[in-house]
């Protein structure tokens, strides 16, 4: 594994690079700035020496234990082994504290994280920050507002002294080498700019980041062969979803977070520290580049406005209206056509289908991007979503949805352990409308999961084998029925997998003859819409899939003539009214003067 390359030879590299760095004076400058000039310190650029933290008070440990057995034990387990009752249905699994291996740190690779039971200072107390803000992209929630500062320190006092078993925070042989990120002079942050991003784009190739994270950073470089220190499969981060970066909750677009992760590495995972083979400056360029590929309002534009985050969920805010714009002429077949680029896009939040069996506890597709437009004949939907692999069912393989994971399976049979062992099915995406939405008085509509027995839905499903079919849904417990006549009317304009992302463009005539079963599109109406997605490498098939909430497709009506004329009339009326008021006041004043 190339990603392991740096790990194996870390020591040698460290010495070599430290020597070079010192020779270049970078190390000296850093040490000067921190007032600790030690030419032979062997520290990587940007790091300073720290000390063992204060020992927690026994009372804090005692109090912390109570909190642990109320709040944490359910996932992390009675002995802190990451094997609580909830663990077997989670991927990533809850942290096993016993080894003292923690991912998000300001300390050098392999070291214990920063934790001081007396100092709840953000940025200087890694474990405290992790508990406070949770770990986005995992089940670990933020405990801010649930546990007081003191309680968080207490529970961490318990965890670090009682559940971390293989190492001790007060062991004098433990080193604490701290990334001096708050020291502005030493860090010399490079601002986010075109030049810096361009340099970063080159560096991620030179430093082999792309080998795991993929050429476009969608985490698709080496998604199936990586394992963490506990032997569970792990996938490289998708840089396009910075809100899923661990330790990014406060602000996913904060460059320092990426700089930190990149400098210190992620302990227990194949993500190495790049502290020894990059300069501080190079790390800023890389961090700026990684930040630049995170999705923003406009596709592929690193300087367009940032996505707004929902403070409750720390995910991009969703807008439940999917606007479809009227256009003149043909629908452009190229998704990169300017007409498509200029259309606003909407993010569709996707959760695992966990209502009916087989439930999808580990959901790999957590969002889709949708765009739509229509002309006088047809409507088009453009889907884009990140998927680390193209999955297509092998000929002859029967698709049988995998069974639901048992609540307690043991580590070896847990969902996390089973990742990457499933029979590969088709990647797929579907869009669903009520067949006769006109007949329901809003907000009433057929149920989100394939409608109901007497309230049918029209569902269009594309699969990675290139098929696009129309189905009738009559309830979650009934099989979808294909309608060949309706399938003929659907047109797959584009179905392409490129660098960890699917792009699917489909069209259908606005109106069809089968008004009972086919959805009919009318302008200016809110048409309830539900999205479904399947990741073939996750064993997704049938009801094991990702689902969205109800969205509304609306065909934007052309602007009516009244909307243009009336405002002008109103403005003219205002001018007349102004003249009248001022005249009246003037006459009144004159009369008063005369008196």
């Amino acid at each position: 594994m190339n990603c392991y390359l740096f790990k194996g030879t870390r020591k040698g590299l460290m010495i070599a690079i430290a020597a070079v760095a010192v020779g270049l004076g970078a190390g000296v400058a850093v040490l000067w700035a921190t007032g600790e000039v030690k030419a032979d310190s062997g520290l990587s650029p940007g790091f300073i020496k720290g000390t063992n933290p204060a020992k927690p008070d026994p009372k804090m440990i005692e109090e912390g234990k109570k909190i642990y057995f109320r709040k944490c034990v359910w996932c992390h387990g009675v002995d802190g082994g990451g094997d609580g009752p909830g663990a077997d249905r989670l991927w990533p699994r809850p942290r096993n504290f016993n080894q003292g291996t923690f991912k998000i740190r300001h300390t050098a690779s392999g070291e214990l994280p920063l934790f001081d039971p007396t100092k709840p200072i953000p940025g200087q107390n890694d474990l405290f920050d992790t508990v406070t803000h949770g770990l986005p992209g995992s089940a670990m929630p933020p405990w801010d507002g649930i546990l007081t500062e003191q309680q968080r320190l207490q529970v961490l006092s318990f965890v670090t002294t009682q559940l971390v078993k293989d190492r001790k925070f007060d062991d004098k042989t433990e080193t604490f080498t701290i990334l001096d990120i708050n020291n502005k002079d030493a860090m010399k942050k490079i601002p986010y700019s075109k030049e810096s991003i361009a340099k970063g784009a080159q560096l991620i190739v030179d430093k082999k980041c792309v080998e795991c994270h993929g050429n476009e950073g969608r985490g698709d470089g080496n998604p199936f062969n990586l394992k963490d220190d506990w032997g569970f499969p792990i996938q490289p981060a998708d840089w396009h979803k910075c809100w899923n970066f661990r330790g990014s909750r406060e602000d996913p677009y904060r460059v320092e977070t990426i700089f930190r992760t990149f400098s210190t590495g992620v302990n227990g995972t194949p993500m190495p520290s790049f502290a020894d083979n990059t300069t501080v400056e190079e790390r800023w360029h890389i961090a700026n580049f990684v930040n630049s590929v995170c999705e923003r309002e406009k596709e592929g534009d690193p300087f367009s406005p940032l996505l707004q985050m929902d403070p409750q969920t720390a995910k991009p805010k969703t807008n439940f209206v999917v606007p479809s714009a009227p256009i003149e002429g043909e629908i452009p077949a190229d998704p990169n056509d300017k007409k498509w680029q200029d259309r606003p896009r909407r993010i569709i939040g996707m959760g695992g289908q966990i209502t009916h069996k087989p439930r999808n506890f580990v959901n790999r597709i957590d969002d889709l991007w949708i765009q739509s437009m229509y002309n006088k004949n047809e409507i088009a939907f453009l889907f884009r979503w990140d998927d680390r692999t193209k999955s297509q069912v092998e000929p002859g393989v029967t698709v049988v949805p995998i069974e639901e994971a048992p609540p307690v399976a043991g580590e070896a049979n847990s969902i996390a352990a089973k990742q990457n062992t499933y029979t590969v099915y088709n990647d797929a995406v579907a869009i669903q409308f009520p067949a006769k939405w006109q007949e329901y008085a809003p907000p009433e509509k057929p149920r989100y999961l394939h409608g109901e027995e007497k309230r049918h839905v029209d569902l269009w499903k594309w699969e990675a084998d290139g098929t696009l079919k129309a189905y009738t849904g009559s309830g979650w417990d009934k099989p979808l029925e294909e309608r060949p006549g309706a399938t003929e009317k659907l047109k797959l304009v584009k179905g392409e997998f490129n660098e960890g992302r699917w792009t699917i463009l489909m069209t259908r005539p606005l109106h069809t003859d089968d008004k009972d079963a086919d959805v009919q599109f009318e302008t200016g109406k809110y048409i309830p819409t539900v999205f479904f997605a399947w990741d073939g490498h996750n064993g997704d098939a049938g009801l094991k899939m990702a689902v969205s909430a109800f969205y509304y497709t609306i065909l934007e009506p052309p602007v009516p003539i009244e909307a243009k004329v009336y405002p002008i009339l109103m403005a003219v009326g205002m001018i007349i009214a102004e003249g009248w008021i001022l005249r009246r006041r003037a006459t009144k004043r004159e009369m008063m003067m005369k008196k």
Partner: protein
Amino acid sequence: MSALFPRFVEGYMPMQMLGEVGLQIVLFIYLFYLLDKKMGIKVNKLAQATSLFIYSFLYFRYRIYPPLPFSVIAIYETNVLIGIFMWVSSTETSWQDFRRPLIAVADGLTPTTRITRAVSVVLLPFLVGFLGWNNMKPSIDEPIELRTVHPAPPASTKVHGKTFVLQTARNPYRVDDQGNYSEGSSPIMKTYLDGNPWDEKAPPYLQYVREGGQIFFQNCHFCHGDNLNGRGMFAFAFNPIPANFTDAGTIAQLQETFVFWRVSKGGIGLPREGFPWASVMPPWEQHLTIDEIWKVILFEYWHTGYYPRTWD
């Protein structure tokens, strides 16, 4: 803006909002009183009214979360406007004070008022035209759909072939050390509120709590969250958002049997006013046994520290 108005984060809380609005009005009046009487700064009624109006808009726009739709803010602001007019026109002096700057601008006797007059004469028609356009152009706002969160329960519910009458059914695991049913906020429940359900010597009640917790963290936390606050891993994708059990408006004000009915029958079992078509809440009878459902409910009350409402 968010630093100035930290948001409510746990959904709408009408009483809190009403309290805050009332407090702020009093503060505003007191502020102007202080400026006038203590510091000798006389703030004109028109300026007072305008600042109050702008402040109220910012409050509705930025303080409340989830954000109010514009149409709702417009209704609130209309009420605020009416209130402000009643206030400024309550006495003749106040009304004259309010009118004075407007008349001064209309008269345009000094250079400043003349410039203000010219600017407003030009800008006002544009403003009116723009508002008209804004109002008439085709809108694609999210539709407002009001859902009944706690619809009226049925008299009884049938789960796994067994009929439960909601008025009389009891959680068989809500028991004291002797195994007797122990109602809502009974002393025994209070004693064990801070108990450790993982203690090997835990009393039966706490052992049932532990079993309920295990079920919760194998099934429910994906939506309702590890904190039971409705912010689980999948919560962001769903609408309506999962119930927040730590909010005083959910399980704290419901009878335990109501919760039993909702858990067993799930979203699909809701009456129409509860939007059964949109809820992803599973009908848990498809996944759990009757005992497991009762235990998980026991756990939810224990963990949040609430007691089920009793039939009174």
